[in-house]
């Protein structure tokens, strides 16, 4: 085969790849738009049960998105993101009920404190990678879990109650109304996922991808790898804290369980189920996770066993997650 033929063939492949990419992008926009329209219409279409489930899915989805910035974008598997979920909830809990600050001060204050703490914790954790990273993040989260149980400030293992929902009276709305709270969570979710998409597609995000692919090459290119990893760690922590704030507002309550390693592990499961390669993957993973758990728990009290089997099947049949499987099913050539 001559060189010209090879080149002609490769450029056809390139052109096909570009056309396919444009098609995928267009379809993604259509899907995203219909998802948002569907989400907006949900409270009118269905019973309050569906709205409740949707709130849980969205909060879990934000949490999983934060985890995915480390797992999928940077290649660092953390088993300690629950600590930031908990810190978010405890942050506004302490801000509003102990310090008596208004919510509009407690929320940004909490996020700033979480970011500072994440910078310190991240500086230590990101010196390791692989299993060591997983274990050191787990160790940090267990430390916070232990503190939350023991501290009198946070009411020990009983947790803190009376965490307020946003005051939306200036809009003529009542935040305690489930439908209003649903829209509030929806707005935060859309903003969080859009922000995550922007970050992954940014120059900073491309450095994270380089680190995931080859940390040594990223260094050789001239990137101070550790500072980018700490940056990703901070953004992931703040995102998880946002989920924690919403969670505590949703239940008006926060207790040490939100910092447990089980919760961190569930977040990683959601990421794996949905797939790490897209920003909607974690959201879809959260939906599959929450719905499967709910569905199975209706059918049987031993739902955890079946959930384990379900998870194994998902991993076995959708290697790169549900979203990638759907993509290849939609665009595979006949």
């Amino acid at each position, binding site marked *: 085969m001559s060189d010209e033929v090879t080149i002609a063939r*490769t450029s056809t492949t390139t052109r096909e790849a570009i056309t396919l990419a444009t098609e995928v992008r267009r379809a993604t926009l259509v899907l995203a738009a219909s998802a948002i329209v569907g989400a907006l219409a949900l409270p009118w279409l269905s019973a309050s049960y569906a709205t409740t489930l949707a709130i849980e899915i969205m909060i879990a989805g934000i949490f999983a998105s934060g985890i995915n910035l480390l797992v999928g974008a940077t290649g660092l598997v953390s088993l300690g993101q629950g600590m930031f979920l908990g810190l978010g909830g405890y942050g506004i809990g302490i801000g509003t009920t102990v310090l008596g600050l208004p919510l509009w001060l407690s929320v940004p204050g909490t996020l700033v404190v979480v970011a500072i703490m994440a910078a310190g914790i991240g500086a230590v954790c990101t010196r390791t990678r692989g299993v060591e990273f997983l274990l050191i993040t787990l160790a940090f989260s267990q430390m916070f879990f232990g503190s939350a149980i023991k501290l009198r400030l946070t009411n020990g293992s009983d947790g803190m109650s009376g965490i307020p929902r946003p005051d939306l009276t200036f809009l003529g709305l009542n935040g305690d109304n489930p439908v209003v709270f649903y829209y509030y969570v929806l707005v935060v979710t859309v903003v969080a996922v859009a922000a995550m998409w922007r970050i992954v597609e940014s*120059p900073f995000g491309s450095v994270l991808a380089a680190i995931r692919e080859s940390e040594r090459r990223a*260094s050789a290119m001239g990137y101070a790898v550790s500072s980018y990893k700490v940056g990703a760690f901070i953004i992931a922590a703040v995102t998880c804290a946002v989920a924690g704030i919403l969670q505590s507002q949703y239940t008006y309550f926060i207790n040490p369980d939100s910092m447990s390693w089980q919760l961190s592990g569930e977040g990683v499961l959601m990421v794996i189920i949905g797939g790490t390669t897209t920003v909607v993957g974690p959201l879809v993973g959260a939906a599959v996770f929450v719905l499967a758990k709910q569905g199975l728990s209706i059918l049987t009290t031993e739902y955890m066993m079946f959930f384990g089997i379900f998870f194994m099947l998902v991993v076995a049949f959708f290697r790169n997650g549900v979203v990638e499987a759907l993509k290849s099913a939609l665009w595979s050539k006949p």
Partner: protein
Amino acid sequence: MSALEARNLHKRFGGLEVISNLNLTVPPGQRRAVIGPNGAGKTTFINLVTGWLSPTSGNVLVDGHAVAGRPEKVTRSGIARSFQRNMLLEDLTVVENLRVACQAFHPCRRVFWRSKRAFATVIEKAERAAERMHLTDILEVPAKHLSYGQKRQLEVALALCAEPKILLMDEPAAGTSPQERARLIDLINGLPRDITILLVEHDMDVVFATCDLITVLSYGKVLATGTRREIQDDPTVMEAYLGHRHAGD
């Protein structure tokens, strides 16, 4: 002043001295080949220059100053390297590999609130780098799907994105086809003459076609430095490569 200088360089791994009292001076703009039998310490020397290893004793000086500690700092100070074993961003496309490499020297590299597509100068630079390395037709192909030879080309292209003053290449021709080697020779000879090049290579055609001077390493020491003819006629070099008895024949 020399562009690159090794002064009484030692590197020991446990009981094994891989670099032992190495002294080497490369003047600016020179193309220097470093050859030697396997285990002579060639790659270790590149690792010492580029901050991947620190010397047990001795110094590496660039423009008369000690090299900056960590690899990324060395790269930012104008010294780039290619690796003996391909180290690519495998899941990313060719153009994205090059774009990320070029982006390292653009102030946008820490920007997380804008799309990477907004920085056209970086993309243009990546496309020019691809053109120089004959990679234009495979820009959108993920690096993992490239042929071995194409991967070698991308490996060198990534190092060149740093626009280095000193370029260290670790066996760039290893495993490539004759056409790819010819392209590599053209590429090296086409680089601006003010770039100092240190080439570690086993392929003597590439060495002879591109380098002014050859340094032979053996057991971590400089055995000889000279032109092609001088090296070919040097009995100690023959001995190092072929063994005592053959060299005497």
